């Protein structure tokens, strides 16, 4: 194998090998440890596919499958309704506060577990604020949160930022000349949008939509909290975690979830193949931002504010909950207090520092590994390199609870030297779980960033005597910094509210992160306020981080853009 490598490929080959080992040990092996049950005869333990036959024969599972599919598809539709106007207005028009809108639009991704759902229920539930008001004023209520529609509603609010982020990026990358030449040939208005702008932004949209579809399809938290059982993910979870019952169907469903998610990823990649226009274009500064007439501007603002109000309502509810005394069957809390924050800071500051540490380290590892994978896949001809990408992306489709149980099963018997305790109950395992779970996000950001760094910049460094490693370190990484930062923030933000894997892995209370702390508070009636306060603190931390990094990226874009303009002449 080494003989076919060129001298320049040895470093990347070592890095790729290490990453592959990491993925094998912390993704593949634990997952196989868990899902192998799916392939065993429950009575004899022999390998069999009978469980899958059972799955497809069981009407409850058939229904669950259809429900999951329906919810995921409809969530993509509803998310698009939220994301399209925000993305389009902020990239296409001169719009005050575009940066703020973009940042606020990402906040919904950071929905702390449990408290987010409680806040939603208090606002939109059968007897939530909105319905209480509707009932009082008009004598009717709207079942926002009932049944599958409730799941669609909550999921769309939660995950639409994936479409917003990807679509905005795609719109920003459209070469100005593309639009201008279309105008020059007589296209304008909606025709221009339909025939030029939208097709060019399509890859971004599809990438975001695929992400939404997969996340919703796999999501466990929302259906569970709305007590919807007849979907696949909750069925898997309920069957895996029930007392005493060790029904293999839970694992069968997990396997089917993973397989179906990979299938959707693959389909979306197929749909995108040969359509990644970003690399064909020069990324010249995005669309021309048009000035809006006054009435247009007001209209746009109205739409934007309405959408933001809707998608940020869980967080508004959370804020109210954290300051409210008692909030029960009423439009607003009975009174307000800062007591919950006092409780949190005096009792629970450990959760916050742990979260910053875990999510920070996980995000750091994610961007390091993500950059490594991106480099190996896109800049080397190493055999099998694509599998690193597939492997890391597959983590997207593995339910957190499967990872959690897999780690316990695989690594509890392994004592870490020096600290002398089982790897599965050492706090580092939580970081590893978060790293694996958030790697797909960071990876996509790193790949996008790498694709924008011209390969000749790296060759120039090598030509001047810098080794592969040195040129990556001095040239490629600094030029990728904007995208790496974006990946870091996405990983960090979502890792800081992750619960499903950590719930299984926290071995001592003093190691617990924020999401776990919220979970703990939310197990008692008196803990709802402090839980919400903890949630608000988490959101504020992550939101600030996101905003700051947006600023940094935006600044980086300005310098890069001026380069791009010069380079434009260069490539003419």
């Amino acid at each position, binding site marked *: 194998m080494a003989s076919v490598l060129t001298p320049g490929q040895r470093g990347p080959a070592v890095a790729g090998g290490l990453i592959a080992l990491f993925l094998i040990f912390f993704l593949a092996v634990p997952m196989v440890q868990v899902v192998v049950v799916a392939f065993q005869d*429950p009575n004899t333990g022999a390998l069999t596919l*009978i*469980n899958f036959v*059972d*799955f497809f*024969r069981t*009407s*409850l599972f058939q229904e669950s499958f259809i429900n999951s599919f329906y919810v995921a598809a409809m969530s993509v539709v509803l998310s698009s309704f939220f994301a399209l106007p925000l993305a389009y207005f902020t990239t296409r028009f001169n719009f005050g506060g575009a940066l703020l809108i973009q940042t606020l639009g990402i906040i919904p991704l950071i929905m702390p577990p449990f408290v987010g759902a409680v806040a939603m*229920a208090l606002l939109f539930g*059968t*007897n939530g604020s909105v319905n209480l008001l509707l009932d009082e004023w008009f004598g009717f209520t709207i079942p926002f949160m009932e049944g599958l529609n409730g799941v669609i509603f909550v999921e769309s609010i939660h995950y639409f930022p994936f479409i917003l982020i990807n679509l905005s990026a795609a719109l920003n990358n459209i070469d100005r000349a593309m639009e201008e030449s279309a105008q020059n040939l007589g296209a304008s208005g909606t025709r221009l949008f339909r025939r030029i702008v939208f097709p060019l932004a399509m890859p971004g949209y599809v990438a975001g939509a695929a992400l939404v579809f997969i996340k919703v399809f796999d999501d466990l938290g929302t259906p*569970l909290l709305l*007590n919807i*059982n007849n979907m696949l993910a909750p069925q898997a979870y309920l069957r895996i*975690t*029930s*007392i*005493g*019952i*060790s*029904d*293999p*169907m839970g694992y069968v469903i997990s396997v089917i979830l993973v397989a179906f998610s990979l299938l959707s990823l693959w389909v979306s990649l197929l749909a995108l193949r040969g359509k990644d226009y970003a690399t064909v274009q020069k990324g010249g500064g995005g669309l021309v931002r048009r000035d809006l007439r006054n009435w247009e501007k007001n209209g746009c603002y109205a739409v934007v504010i309405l959408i933001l109000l809707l998608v940020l309502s869980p967080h508004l509810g959370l804020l109210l909950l954290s300051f409210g*005394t*008692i*909030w*029960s*069957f*009423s439009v607003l809390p009975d009174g307000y207090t800062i007591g919950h924050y006092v409780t949190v800071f005096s*009792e629970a500051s*450990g959760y916050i520092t*742990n979260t910053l*540490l875990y999510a920070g*380290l996980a995000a750091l590892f994610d961007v390091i590994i993500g950059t490594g994978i991106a480099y190996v896949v896109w800049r080397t001809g190493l055999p099998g390199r694509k599998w690193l990408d597939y492997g890391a992306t597959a983590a997207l489709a593995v339910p957190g609870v499967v990872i959690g*149980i897999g780690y*316990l*099963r695989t690594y*509890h018997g392994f*004592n870490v030297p020096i*600290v*002398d*305790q*089982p790897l*599965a109950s050492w*706090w580092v395992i939580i970081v590893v779980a978060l790293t694996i779970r958030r790697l797909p996000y960071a990876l996509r950001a790193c790949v996008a960033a790498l694709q924008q760094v011209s390969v000749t910049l790296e060759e120039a460094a090598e030509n001047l005597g810098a080794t592969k490693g040195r040129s990556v370190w001095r040239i490629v990484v600094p030029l990728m910094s904007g995208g790496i930062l974006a990946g870091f923030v996405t990983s960090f933000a979502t890792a800081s509210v992750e619960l499903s894997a950590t719930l*299984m892995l*926290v*071995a*001592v*209370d*003093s190691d*617990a992160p924020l999401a*776990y702390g919220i979970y*703990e*508070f939310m*197990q*008692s*009636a*008196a*803990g709802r306020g402090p839980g919400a306060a903890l949630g608000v603190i988490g959101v504020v931390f992550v939101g600030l981080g996101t905003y700051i990094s947006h600023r940094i990226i935006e600044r980086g874009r300005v310098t890069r853009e001026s380069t791009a303009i010069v380079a434009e002449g260069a490539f003419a």
Partner: protein
Amino acid sequence: MKNILFATLVAMSLALAPFQAQAAKGTLTIVTSYPKDTTGTFKAAFEKKYPNVKVEMLKKKTTAGIKYLQETAGNNTADMFWASAPDAFEVLKGDDLLIKYQVKVKGIPEKVGAFPINDPDGYYKGFAASGYGIMWNTRYLKAKKLPAPAEWSDLKNPVYHGHVGMSAPSRSGTTHLTVETLLQGEGWEKGWAEWKAIAGNFKTVTERSFGVPDGVNSGQFGVGIVIDFFGLSSQASGFPVEYRYPTVTTLVPANIALVKNGPNPEAAGAFIEFLLSPEGQELLLDPKIRRLPVNPATYAKAPADFPNPFKDSSIGSAVKFDLALSKGRYNVVNSLFDVMITYRLDDLRDATKAIHDAEAAMAGKPNDKAADLIAQAKALINQVPVDAATASKKEFNAIFKKKRKKAATKVEGRQAEIEQEWDTMVKDNYARAKSLAEQAKSIL
């Protein structure tokens, strides 16, 4: 440069790393399903009494706690398991994950209500009692003009349709006890009929047991079937809710046990002794904890309105709870409840609504044909796919367990297969019941 950076990073992360006691003598790790209010109070009091011991409370939902102990058994780091449901302890006992402990403290009786306080085999000990009951949101009931319920049978009343919440027995050990209590009290067929009549009024079956008080507290539904301390502590936290014990209820001890091969058995023993000592028992009276002490003497210090099961014979003595019977059909009951109620709640609710409507239409104008149709509909709903004898059969139960003790136990069929058969029957019955009730209404 890179090396320095990396070293700094490692140093930083080590400096920030959470404090690790590294299983040194003096750390006591307890896996528990109890809320922070309970664990925090006991931790503080215990650490005050034993300053050299540091208590680590590892919060896991009961089901997750079992899974955790099972998965980590090979290299155990937990000392104790502390939770409510005796069934959870039975599962752990069955998996040989607990060790026996001999309590030194005196003054704890054999039984509370009809239920023995301690495991007859000596593995787990009761430290407090809990009873199941009904909690409701007063604002909700007032707004919807509903009466406050008193008995389980009240919840069958059509006025409560869509207003009741409960957790599933497969999700919550204490819920399982409630379900089992009614099944034992009323008998297999009638007990299930009662449950289905109540479940027909369900708004939801929550995934977590705390989901029920949470839903009542926030007003998502008005009435919840909950364990007493959920209701009492919600009330104590200021929510507009009330709680009561119905006549037919059971008092069950909340338990604690030593985990096999725990790293610190001395501290674990000390913790049990502390829990059962008068000062430990007294902590249970704290309004945020609100559990019934198992030491009768402690009630002398309780507030006036505090229920005392040792004096008030109405609490928890109506049913003789047969633990062996419960254990013998544990998984079958859970699975049946999920198949008949949790997963088919919509169908059951629709059918129940149709029957309510038909009965309302029939009120005041008797009609034999309609009454017959309604009776048929009810019978369809009440049909249980498995009879009591089968439910307790060892071979049948084995289908629902992964681990089988003896290879000789003959197992036929797979859980998924059986559940599919049940589901087909249940779904079909509910649909037919609905159409029969609608037919009854149409002829009135």
